[in-house]
């Protein structure tokens, strides 16, 4: 065999063998990877509305989805809004639980973020950020409390704590939440959120 054919034969066979190997690995892991992604968002949707036992997606668009949260007896106890927007470094994806009338934020969870470790990444931290998002009045836009206070009770009903040194990340989360609630309200006015039980 001359050199050229040998080169072609070797590279082709290596490519074919690797390709078939990868096809198998891809097949085996594909379903689980899709399941993981879906599961993560659904778990977040369940968690942000306390007492919810099942969720169902009722609306979806790019970077925005609405889930219905129902309790064991099937009563609608809130909506979970999944939304994403620009953070300090990259997209922040979060889930926020709201009451059925869309006037109260029940709680917040961060699904995905790439903020600065030790500063902006604290948006995922329960003690320094998320705990101040419980039961906020969002009938008007939420606003940021700066500098932050220690006791959640000393915040006004429509205020949430900023993180010291990470105002941009805190503000980004706030904007995403406000925007998501506005969108949900619009959809509700158009009658796209089912009120059936």
């Amino acid at each position: 065999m001359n050199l050229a054919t040998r080169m072609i034969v070797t590279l082709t066979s290596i490519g074919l063998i690797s390709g078939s190997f990868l096809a198998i690995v891809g097949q085996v892991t594909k379903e689980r990877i899709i399941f993981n992604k879906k599961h993560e968002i659904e778990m977040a949707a369940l968690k942000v509305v306390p007492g919810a036992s099942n969720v169902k997606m009722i609306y979806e668009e790019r970077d925005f989805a609405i889930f219905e949260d129902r309790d064991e007896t099937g009563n609608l106890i809130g909506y979970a809004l999944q939304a994403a927007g620009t953070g300090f470094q990259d997209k922040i994806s979060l889930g926020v639980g709201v009451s059925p009338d869309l006037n109260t934020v029940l709680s917040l969870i961060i699904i995905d973020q790439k903020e600065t470790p030790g500063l902006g990444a604290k948006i995922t931290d329960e003690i320094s950020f998320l705990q101040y998002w419980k039961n906020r009045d969002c009938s008007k836009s939420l606003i940021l409390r700066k500098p932050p206070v220690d006791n959640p009770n000393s915040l006004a009903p429509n205020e949430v704590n900023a993180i010291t040194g990470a105002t941009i990340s805190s503000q980004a989360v706030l904007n995403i939440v406000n925007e998501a609630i506005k969108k949900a309200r619009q959809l509700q006015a158009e009658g796209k959120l089912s009120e059936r039980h």
Partner: protein
Amino acid sequence: MAEKTRKQEFFKGLWGENPITRQLLGLCSVLAVSNAVINGLAMGLAVTFVLIFSSLIVSLIRKIVPNQVRIASFIVIIATFVTIADRTLAAYFPHLSKAMGPYVPLIVVNCIILGRAEAFASKNKVSRSVIDALGMSGGYFLTILLMGLIRELLGNRTILGYPILGKWFSPWVVMLLPPGAFIMLGLIIAISNVIDFKIKERQKRV
């Protein structure tokens, strides 16, 4: 140069030819994902897996592959194992996969792996290549783990998420950021140089 014993072949990767502190190869991933112990562990394991299997295959086919296409063949082999590692992590350890972001796919261009394939596995017997790969990945693993331990402890007061230092210690946020990685790596290399120098001095006197 006399042929090394298998034991020497293994230990050179841990110290004498440690890929990070001596050869300064594959630093990108070491700097980027050593901000927590768990990330360092996962990255170390992923590199170990890829390095051992690509060295094995490269050594197996070293006599079949024509010299002109060897680099291309090596890269295809390495990329195959990296993709397997990446998909497996994404399927079974989604949290780790997320924390490491693009750095698992980037193992393809990690110089340690192509470097060992080209400099060692393509010229040596299979058993020797695997021992060399084990030593090299061991050296990588230990160094990235050490970086992760120090950076997580000083930057976040924790190790593997468990609080170690009390409230009295104010975390050095810089340790979690890129500058902290460069500072730590510089110190580790400097310290290992000093130790190496002392060892050589002693050997000279004997």
